[in-house]
């Protein structure tokens, strides 16, 4: 689904990603863990096309297209979705109005007709149930006055509406209590299929009890330094990141 090769990216002249290589096939969930400042959120931002970051080297193939050549909106239209670590509040823009615009622009890009109002509302009802989002929140302004948990649920609701090929969850678990975490994780699990892939970026192993990854990667100092089965997450939880750092410095 996505093949990242030797990716280098910097912000304000400071290199954050230093030759990151990663491959996530369709049908799989990969977790990316790592200490603070390792470059986890930078990776999410670069993949989503945030202009503050400059890609200096490397390539990203997204299901056959050169991702780095695409604008942010075209990446979304090709089927990429980023669940934000800090979802933005947008006063005055209703959730459903914005999602309908998004859905129709994506459909137009793919040569499909706009969705009818009736089908759209049916879809809103169905998808909001997946994350147990109060349908009233769906018609409110985007994230405005939402609690932390509601914002994260809203991210997964949007993901359900847009049905992406690749979803990147950037620290979606941060700040969630166990109930909210369970709801968000259930939503993600219900959306898993053989055709799509998920990258879960997290600092804590806790989320991975609910979203079981096929592979766990450790991101440190701008590169993937270790990959392994889901048990690697437990080892990191137990031992912290110091042994990784020591291992790297020894090289």
């Amino acid at each position: 689904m996505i093949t990242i090769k030797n990716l280098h990216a910097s912000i304000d002249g400071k290199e954050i990603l230093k030759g990151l290589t990663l491959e996530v096939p369709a049908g799989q969930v990969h977790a990316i863990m790592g200490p603070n400042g390792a470059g986890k959120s930078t990776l999410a931002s670069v993949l989503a096309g945030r202009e503050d970051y400059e890609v200096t080297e490397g390539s990203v193939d997204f299901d056959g297209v050169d991702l780095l050549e695409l604008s942010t909106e075209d990446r979304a239209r090709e089927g990429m979705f980023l669940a934000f670590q800090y979802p933005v509040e947008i006063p005055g823009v209703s959730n459903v109005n914005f999602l309908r615009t998004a859905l129709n622009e994506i459909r137009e890009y793919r040569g499909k007709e706009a969705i009818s109002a009736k089908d759209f509302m049916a879809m809103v009802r169905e998808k909001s149930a997946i994350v147990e989002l109060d349908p009233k929140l769906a018609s409110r302004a985007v994230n405005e006055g939402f609690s932390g948990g509601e914002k994260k649920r809203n991210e997964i609701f949007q993901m359900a509406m847009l049905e992406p090929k690749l979803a990147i969850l950037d620290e979606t678990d941060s700040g969630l209590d166990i109930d909210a975490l369970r709801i968000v994780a259930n939503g993600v699990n219900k959306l898993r299929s053989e055709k799509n892939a998920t990258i879960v970026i997290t600092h804590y192993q806790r989320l991975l009890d609910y979203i079981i990854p096929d592979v766990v990667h450790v991101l440190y100092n701008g590169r993937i330094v270790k990959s392994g089965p889901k048990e690697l997450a437990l080892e990191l939880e137990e031992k912290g990141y110091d042994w990784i750092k020591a291992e790297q410095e020894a090289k």
Partner: protein
Amino acid sequence: MSETQTDRTLSSFTKHLRQTEISLPAHLITTSLNELNGKSFPTTRSEAWKYTRLTKLSKLSPTLASKQDGTNGTPFAIHSTGNFLVLENGAIHLDASRFETVTGLTIKRFSECNAEELQHIGSLLTLENEPFNALNTAYLQEGIFIQIADKVQIEAPIELIHLLSKVECSATIRLYIHVGKFAKAEMTIGTWAAGADKSILNAVTEIHVGEGAHFTLQKLQCEDEGNFQICTEEITQDKDSVFTMHTVTLNGTLVRNNVRVRVNGTNCETNLYGAYLLKGNQHTDNHTVIDHMMPHCNSNELYKGVIDEQATAVFNGKVFVRKDAQKINAFQSNGNVLMTDTAAVNSKPELEIYADDVKCSHGSTTGQLDEEAVFYLQSRGISERSARNLLVEAFIGEVLDKNDNQDFVAKTNAILNERFGWER
């Protein structure tokens, strides 16, 4: 090189104009002529014109232009039903208007008014150091007197269409509106241009809202870029009355709105809403005064602007609460979005409170669109252009949505679509 002030005298501006033939009270004409004689246009040194340059306007020597035979008011009409009256280049044009008799509604020209009726006109309008008011008195072309009888409710909005259709012409018009006790009415004023350039509309509207009456005035300012518009609204409210005004400015090289509401009775409500969406080299200046002279009143004021390209705007809102005007709730807010580095706004909200038991607030914000929100919307597949439009619409929608007149909102949206490509 800067020109000397004497090059921009008011007499050079009025040299092709004709002194009014309307029988306004004589002392008003005398005072006005004294105000104009030998004087110059105000400069940015005067507080009231600090951020609005009249240089371009003062260089004009406009002529009086007549109405044209083939003019049709219908394309400019905002409402599909009810009366509309066309004033072309300041001249009343009945053939272009749509007119039906409405019970309880009197509309006539000042020339048809009796001396008693004429006594009311201009009685509260400041002439001293207000050259545009003085011009609107001494050089008044046409005056329309509108009376709504006591206890009458006029269903369809009364519509007035100002049309400029000649190059470098001047239209000087006065409206006097008397809303009778417990009456209810709505008025729409559209200002348009067709084939005009460097022309100026100077419109003064005096409104007396009687006891217990409800009156709504909505203005849609859509002259082409190239024309000037100076509008003054002088409103007096009697007790238990409600006055609401919507000012939507979408075009015009220089648009100045002076609104003054004298709340001269208890238990009144005053609502002033303004939206300005500017681009090119347009300049819009909204000066408002709400003067709370009596206790137990509420006022709400919300003005919002979206300023694109090199356009500039001014907001100066003043709320007075006089010494004995206790228990006043007054809210005032101005918000601006600057779409480019060259767009600019000067915002000055002011409160002057002399009573001690009141609740008043004011605020002003100016900024760019939230780039994080633009990115968020783009990351969901929305183009950058649509994302910016969504955010701008949400911003300005807060004030446009205060208007529940569907025809007015629809016309506004149609023009926004035409000029900015927005779908609302």
